[in-house]
């Protein structure tokens, strides 16, 4: 059920010389250019129906208009981004708090577990109509659906992260006579952090899905609403342009999460260790001299 913490390997990237890297980059470009060219060519000779699949140049044109001529995209883009991020925080805080409670209290865990299971097997997206009935057509229903989708991965990962804390380390803390409080903050939290973070990363993607799906169902603004308006008018070029904007939004949110992950869970990334090690050394020496000066 848990989403495993990232293995911290760069997929598709491997060690190699600069020449290899350059060659790989060129191959990527070549493949992309070939596909686009073939697609463009097929559209022009009439193999593809532009109403179904418009040529890449049409999509580019639509994209250009959305961003630089009419500028319609920005408002919708930020509305959806706001809904997704707000839902992420709300769902994340609730999921995290309940999981901490369940991790620390066995009774609470026992009684909350069945609900968590039912919750998990119910497709969250199917709740959309009810959520709209409850929260209305505005932002709040989008935020609510996003939060609902974020909740589960955060809850499950946080709980299992805490329940799977290294038993050897736990015994070591016990042998040192550590209090519950100190064990929680100095062992459980950092030890579970990679798995918790993985839950938040999945949650962030889910938040975006939740916000967009709720916009599909009923909305007057947002990127999902925009997409629907274009496709109702069979303006597939603009629809694809909006879709690409959703990818951009997804990439922005994902990159933010990755950066946060790299900062918080620094010890899983060998390349960051030397710099942090030096920083810690400086801090330690400063503490020593500060105390020595007193």
């Amino acid at each position, binding site marked *: 059920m848990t989403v495993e913490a990232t293995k911290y390997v760069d997929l598709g990237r491997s060690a190699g010389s600069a020449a290899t890297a350059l060659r790989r980059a060129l191959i990527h470009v070549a493949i992309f250019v070939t596909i686009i060219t073939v697609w463009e060519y097929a559209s022009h000779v009439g193999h593809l129906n532009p109403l179904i699949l418009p040529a890449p140049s049409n999509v580019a044109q639509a994209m250009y208009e959305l961003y630089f001529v009419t500028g319609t995209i920005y408002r919708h883009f930020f509305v959806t981004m706001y809904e997704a991020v707000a839902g992420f925080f709300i769902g994340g805080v609730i999921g995290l708090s309940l999981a901490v409670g369940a991790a620390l209290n066995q009774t609470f865990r026992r009684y909350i577990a069945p609900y968590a299971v039912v919750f998990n097997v119910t497709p969250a997206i199917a709740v959309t109509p009810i959520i709209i009935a409850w929260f209305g057509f505005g932002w709040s229903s989008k935020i609510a659906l996003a939060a609902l989708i974020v909740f589960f991965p955060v809850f499950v990962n946080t709980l299992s992260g805490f329940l799977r804390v290294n038993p*050897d380390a736990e015994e070591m803390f016990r042998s*040192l*006579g550590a209090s519950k409080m100190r064990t929680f903050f100095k062992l459980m939290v950092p030890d579970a952090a990679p798995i918790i973070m993985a839950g938040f990363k999945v949650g962030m993607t889910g938040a975006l899905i939740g916000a967009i799906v709720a916009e599909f169902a009923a909305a007057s603004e947002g990127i999902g609403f925009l997409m629907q308006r274009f496709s109702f008018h069979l303006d597939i070029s603009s629809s694809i342009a909006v879709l690409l904007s959703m990818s951009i939004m997804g990439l922005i949110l994902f990159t933010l999460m990755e950066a946060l992950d790299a900062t918080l869970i620094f*010890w*899983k990334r060998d390349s960051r260790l030397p710099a942090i090690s030096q920083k*810690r050394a400086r801090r*330690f020496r400063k503490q020593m001299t500060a105390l020595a000066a007193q």
Partner: protein
Amino acid sequence: MAAVLKSEARAAVDAAARPNVLEGERVTKRFSETVVALEDATFSVPEGSFVSLVGPSGCGKSTLLRMVAGLIPMTSGTLAVRGEEVKAPRTDVGMMFQKATLLDWRTAVENVLLPTELAGRTTDADRKRAIELLHLVGLEDFEFAFPRQLSGGMQQRVSLARLLQTGADILLLDEPFGALDEFTRERMNIELLRIVDGIGATVLFVTHNIAEAIFLADQVMVMTPRPGRLAKVVDVPFARPREIDLITTAEFNEIVAEVRGILGGH
């Protein structure tokens, strides 16, 4: 080199002069009806002595150590440290586990300071001592390295420094160097002896290796499995400090044969 034997009489005086810091009487641990991890172990450990526990896998060595450390309760019997019944972990008893169990997010010195931090406030003196201990275990220049930047042997050294930082003088070591290669292990053992002699600690040391058990110890507790029992306590009468070529002497190999005989008879 000929082994220097302490005379029987001298050894007896030594032991009598030192009080027992650890006393176990018919210590028994059952995990279930059928799993008897340790049965009726009776033993005593004099202050400042080095005692090895040797025996095959599953004979209850770790279980015994964890009971002494106050980490798990026993089923029956009595167990006392410095005359007080063991009920919970004590500050004068420290344990080092088979795995280094360092915290990956802390530098070496921050790991060594963990016991201090868990006990209360960290002072300048604590920091100084942590650095000194890292130097003592041979980790100059690695005080601020993260565990992932250290080799397995170096991680065990950090773990040893952390144990010493607790200030405990009864040290329970559960196969501390079991995961290391032969050369590193030999070197670590010699350093360990030097360190514990320096602080006058009492040591309970678990190992699978008979020669290692004898080389390090004043007494070897030989244990046998199913159910876990303390079969015999063998005295090791060689004087200290010991040199590594002790293990090639006839006297040494006699003791190896004796221990092997006890283990083989089961």
